[in-house]
């Protein structure tokens, strides 16, 4: 049995920041266990920026402005005390990153450069060209090497263990050997990222953003929060869901339907293509629903009228992206796009210190939900969230580990997990992982996507139950233990099916429209009945059980959210 004082699951920004924070006490054993090598985590994909009211560009910016923007952006579902902590501490963590060597772009005076971002009243997104997540992730990893953080790379967590009150540890499989281990830990921090992949190919997320930590916590009886809120981005590439950034529309790109019509004139005649993200996503989706899509259910982002020179000069990276990932040169033809699931606002319920309902178990980052994003995350706030709450979780896990002893644990869970895997490996015939995954992604995109309504959600819930039944018959064809990636996928699919159900049930129950959650049959926000967090636990019948808890409002009374 492996033993750590603190075990951090996940090595994205949240996990690494937590690790650095908890490494400060040299005598404690800290381990970071991760499905992929640390620098491969999805934090690296973030391009735009990280918000902090440094006031380097606009001297009038304050953290209070940032606070208000965050609450408003969340459609008033964020807890205002949490948002306050995040925005107030933001300048400090961004400076700490920069003191550790993070190469942010510079202003003329040599300070950290900032740019404007959607939903922000002042330009406060700190950036590094178009690679801010990448450089942040590498900086944290580098400092992790410097401070001797212990990494368990290419290990996948299977189960979370506690005695009903206190943390015991986890079980995990070492992918390189195929062996299941029990890992005892005083504290565990779950920082496993989001679950955009429940939309399978209709997401901007990495292949492994399958919500493992969230699903594992849910199965271990911990409440998960606000899961129905998923942010969509209007312009993902047709084949892969990879984002084509707003820059293309900013530069004058048109959105066309399959008939070649510039359809935004129907929905936002003034702003046209530059309307807010959610409106543009819904408009694209309406075109598809009303039968005006291209041959493969796509719409188009057309740059051809900008001309070769302008594209080469102003949008070279977007052009390269389209050629490399979609095989389409935007100089010559319109780019096929679809709205794509981008960010998971919901996650494991935690308090302001990142602690869950079980002592010693913490969650942070996209896997957790404090909540600071409420019904809709502002661009640039999630990289901030992972730093602030990764750090807090690390700090408190450290304190907890220092003041508590190990909780006894046996190998019962390890045996159960080993048995579960063995039975999936036995025999040959059964349902295929790829088929179930594709069906799940399609039905989530169609029925639990940009638009939702009671009837579709009801049928989504029952179709998902069918898929869960089918999953029970899945058999792994690959019988080799070492580096069995088919097994990795099967375990991920199991997690996604559980979370997809929670998302669909939450969306079915929430009979209002708020932030990213749009109900065609309940188009208005309803503060009287729904200004509340959705708390889901696993019911005794194996189905999600919903409760609702109040939103913390300290400063800003809910108002209409208009921009």
């Amino acid at each position, binding site marked *: 049995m492996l033993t750590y004082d603190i075990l951090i699951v996940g090595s994205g920004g949240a996990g690494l920041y937590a690790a650095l924070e908890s490494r400060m006490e040299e005598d404690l054993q800290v381990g970071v266990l991760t499905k*992929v*090598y640390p*620098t*491969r*985590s*999805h934090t*690296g*994909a973030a391009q735009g920026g990280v918000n902090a009211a440094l006031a380097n560009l606009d001297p009038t910016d304050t953290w209070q402005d940032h606070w208000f923007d965050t609450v408003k952006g969340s459609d008033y579902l964020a807890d205002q005390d949490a948002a306050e902590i995040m925005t107030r501490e933001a300048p*400090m963590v961004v*400076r*700490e990153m*920069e*003191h*550790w*060597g993070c*190469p942010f*772009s*510079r202003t*003329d*005076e*040599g*300070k950290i450069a900032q740019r404007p971002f959607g939903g922000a009243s002042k330009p406060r997104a700190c950036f*590094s*060209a178009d*690679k801010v997540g*990448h450089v942040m992730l*590498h900086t944290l990893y*580098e*400092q992790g*090497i*410097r401070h001797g953080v212990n990494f368990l790379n290419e290990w996948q967590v299977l189960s979370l263990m506690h005695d009903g009150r206190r943390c015991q540890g986890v079980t995990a499989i070492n992918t390189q050997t195929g062996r299941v281990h029990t890992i005892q830990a005083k504290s565990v921090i779950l920082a496993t990222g989001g679950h955009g992949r429940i939309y399978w190919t209709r997401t901007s997320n*990495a*292949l492994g953003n399958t919500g493992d930590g969230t699903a594992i916590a849910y199965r271990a009886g911990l409440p998960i929060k606000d899961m129905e809120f998923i942010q969509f981005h209007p312009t993902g590439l047709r*084949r*892969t869901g*990879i984002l084509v950034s707003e820059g293309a529309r900013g530069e004058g790109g048109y959105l*066309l339907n399959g*008939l*070649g*019509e510039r359809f935004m004139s129907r929905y936002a005649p003034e702003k046209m293509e530059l309307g807010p993200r959610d409106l543009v996503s819904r408009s694209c989706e309406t075109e598809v629903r009303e039968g005006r899509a*291209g041959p493969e259910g796509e719409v*188009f982002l057309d740059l051809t009228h900008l001309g070769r020179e302008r594209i080469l000069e102003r949008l070279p990276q977007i052009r390269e992206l389209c*050629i*490399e*990932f979609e*095989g*389409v040169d935007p100089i010559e033809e*319109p780019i*096929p796009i679809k709205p794509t699931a981008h960010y998971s606002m919901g996650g494991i319920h935690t308090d302001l210190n990142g602690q869950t309902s079980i002592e010693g178990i913490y969650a942070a980052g996209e896997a957790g939900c404090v909540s600071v994003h409420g019904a809709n995350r502002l661009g640039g706030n999630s990289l901030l969230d992972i730093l602030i709450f990764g750090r807090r979780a690390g700090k408190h896990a450290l304190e907890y580990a220092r003041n508590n002893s190990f909780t006894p644990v046996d190998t019962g869970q390890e045996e159960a997990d080993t048995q579960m895997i063995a039975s999936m490996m036995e025999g040959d015939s059964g349902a295929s*992982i*790829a088929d179930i995954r594709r069906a799940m992604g399609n039905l989530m995109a169609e029925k639990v996507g940009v638009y939702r309504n009671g009837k579709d959600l009801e049928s989504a819930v029952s179709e998902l139950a069918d898929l869960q039944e089918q999953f029970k018959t899945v058999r792994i*064809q*690959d019988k*080799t*233990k*070492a*580096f*069995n*990636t*088919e097994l990795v996928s099967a375990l991920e699919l199991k997690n996604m099916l559980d979370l997809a159900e929670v998302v669909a049930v939450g969306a079915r129950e929430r009979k209002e429209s708020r932030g990213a959650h749009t109900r065609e049959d309940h188009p208005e926000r309803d503060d009287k009945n729904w200004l509340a967090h959705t708390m889901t636990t696993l019911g005794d019948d194996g189905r999600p059980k919903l409760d609702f808890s109040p939103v913390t409002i300290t400063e800003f009374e809910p108002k209409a959210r208009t921009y």
Partner: protein
Amino acid sequence: MSEKITPVRKSILANIRIQRFTPSEHKSAYFDNFKVKVETGMTVLEALRLIKNTQDSSLTFRAFCRSKICGSCAVRVNGKPVLACSTQLMPILEDFKKDSVSIKPLKNMPVLRDLVVDIEPVIEKLSKMHPYLMENRERIPETLEQESIMSKQEHSRFDYITDCILCGSCYSACSAVDADPSYAGPLTLGKAYRFSADVRDSFQGERMQAAVDQGLWSCAQCRKCINVCPKDTRPAVSIQRMRKMSIDDGIHDTAGSRRAKAYTGDVAKYGQVNKPMLPVIVNGPKGWAAIEAADNYLKKHGIEPTRQVCTLGGQSSTQKIYDKVKELEAKGENKT
């Protein structure tokens, strides 16, 4: 007056030849052939995933971000290291005018299974290079109330290197690693230079020592790392600059001193560095392997390798070259 959009999509039935190997089951690597309908837009990674989903679920490869930022998916396609996720198949099939393409794991690292290699040795080398910033207190304030000030120009000295995604393509292609497995490799030296060129850092000395100990002077300057890098971080250039730094700093009493001396000695003697011979001067007979590897590479590309050094007579021309080099390097530093 809009016009219906009909995208043009081609498709070819292609033969994808993939190297397979499971150490616990096979004595040596072998090839499997898969027939795949390749269409416009399909990347190498999509083809691999399609094969895994529909033909052979045991096919093993790494991939995560599928968007050229995580560095998981590097493989060799028709011999060249590339990222599977950002490489289109159709143009390769069309260019080679064949309906077949081969996919192999990266070189210079042990294969764990099929297309998956063990990158642990590379990570270990990297870790020994002090690949992190150590605060230079003249530039980095003690408190988090203040930022450190770094000009755009100072930032641009190393910014392009921070694009590196640790994909290992350069390591796979490197002639020096091929010849001497203990050589640190392009990406690790690139990372070392990135920090040593950062004005906010205070650890240049130790890092330089680590770089020299791990083969800063063994690089054959064949520039293959530059050719294959998907992020254009130009490791060979970093290595040159790091070498220059080491001479400027004057590393004495180290394994690197011979290298530094050979370098400056050559400049004085010939007016130019005898670059092709450096590995031998430095490593003794072992260095020949690096030279041969580099030679073969050059020959393959129709370039005649040389061990001759052109000499320019007279002190003054040497001085001119020195000056010119300094000037060029000063310019190069500003390039991003």
